[in-house]
């Protein structure tokens, strides 16, 4: 599963909506505080990792999530 697919599933975003590395909370209504927590939890469950508060503090866009995962040597599809 790609990060975009995971976010679409967690936030129940319709298929037609395009997500890019620049997409963040300002672009999607459902990406509010609770949506943010659900994305973090979804990534932790999907990749069986724990994301530290410092790493969470760096996450503002989809691109930031990918960078964080890359640092953990997680390869995405």
């Amino acid at each position: 599963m790609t990060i975009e697919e995971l976010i679409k599933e967690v936030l129940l975003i319709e298929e037609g909506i395009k997500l890019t590395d620049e997409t963040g909370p300002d672009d999607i209504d459902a990406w509010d505080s609770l949506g943010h927590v659900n994305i973090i939890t979804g990534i932790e469950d999907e990749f069986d990792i724990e994301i530290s508060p410092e790493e969470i503090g760096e996450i503002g866009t989809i691109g930031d999530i990918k960078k964080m995962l890359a640092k953990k040597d997680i390869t995405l599809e």
Partner: protein
Amino acid sequence: MQPESIVEGFFRSSESYPEKTAIIWKDEVISYAKVSENVRRVAFFLENHGITEGDRVAFYAEKSPLFAYVYLAAHLLKAVAVPLDVKLPEDRIQEVLHQTNPGILLHPTEANHSFRQVSFDTGLLKTSPLNDINFPNKDDLADILFTTGTTGNSKGVQLTHQNILAGAVNSNEFIGNDASDTEIIPLPLHHAFGLRRLRTNMFLGATVILVDGFMFPKLFFDAIEQHNASGICMVPSGFAIVKKLMKDRYIPYFKKLKYIEFGSAPMDMDEKRELIEHLPNTRICMHFGLTEVAANIFIEFHEAAGKLHALGKPSPNVSIGIFDENGKEKPIRETGEIVVRGDIQTLGYWNKPELTQQSFINSWFKTGDLGFRDEEGYIFLSGRKDDVINIGGKKVFPAEIEDILNQHPAVKDSACTSVSEGDKFTGESIKAFVVLARNRKVEPKELIHFLRGRLELYKIPQEFQFIGKIPTTASGKKQRDKLK
């Protein structure tokens, strides 16, 4: 002499401490003198657009200093502030505009509304400041705040200057915050709780730090470190989010706070105990209230450590009654309806005399909450008279969701209830029971997409169950309790 309004108190603060910081927002640090000047500029702008005493000023409540300018400017002209949730669906906005018929609608972008509308960018702060200042009287109408009613239609809660001033004075008296404090406000400003905190601090001459929600708790920590923030207002779901994202890193920062005001929703007992343990020197206050009678009950966790399951005791200057259906006070430990009396009490609902009449018994406001009082005067909550669901501090009436859901061609009927074990962040969550139309099928995901754009996100059910029939009474009233 005591000021008769928040706006009068604010201008007194501006005269007393012109150089003091009033609002911090992102990288902007704005003094009382500057806020007061901008309020007078917006007031002049509104006056030039024909706004006068009693007119409604509708505006989108974006989290920014502009909110404070527009809000206080409306009051300075003795007009009535009608803040609108930026995430409110379009048809709901239209309903509010139709009900209030505002003299102006201030919108962050140019949208096609049928009311006289001006963009926030259109020179709001470019005019001269208003010079002739006359403060409103305490009995003048200050705000109309919209909440959803049992039938799903919006109702406008009317608050006078006395009401909102009393809400500020009472909570300050309980919490003990003053002009020396700097408070973080992550709550939305259209919501009664966030708005009360803004008013309260502006009235006192304190400093507020506006932060967009709970998504980036590091901003709270920065505010505490860099700006010596001494207080924060939160809903329990916000605190749960902070804990999830920051784990126990919040402790050394929150430990420095003089006070926290929680409110709007129940909080898990373990979290209350955890806060008591980790924040020994912080006043951890929690209010119980509703838009109509703000923060009418308060509890402080350290002082009431043995009564943490109670709502608390009546707020300063507020009377609480536990009434039977005839308006007679119930004996100790017997459950009745919680009723409220005091200067915080709303006048009633905008253009809804019948609903207003039904909401009072003698001169007491009926909250719709059921509870009892113990021997020490603590009030306990037992339940609700109606089917209202509390999602992270926001009240949701099932009928509102059902009305929209039933418009889907595959849905014949529906009933929504709260799920008692609920969501770990929002407390309760919503489950929809759906009766399908003949020979129709639909996936929950499609229903969710259907509801999006028609309802606020927090009102969308998380769970769906398809059933054959909604249980009803002989008179046809839905028995939602039977579905739980």
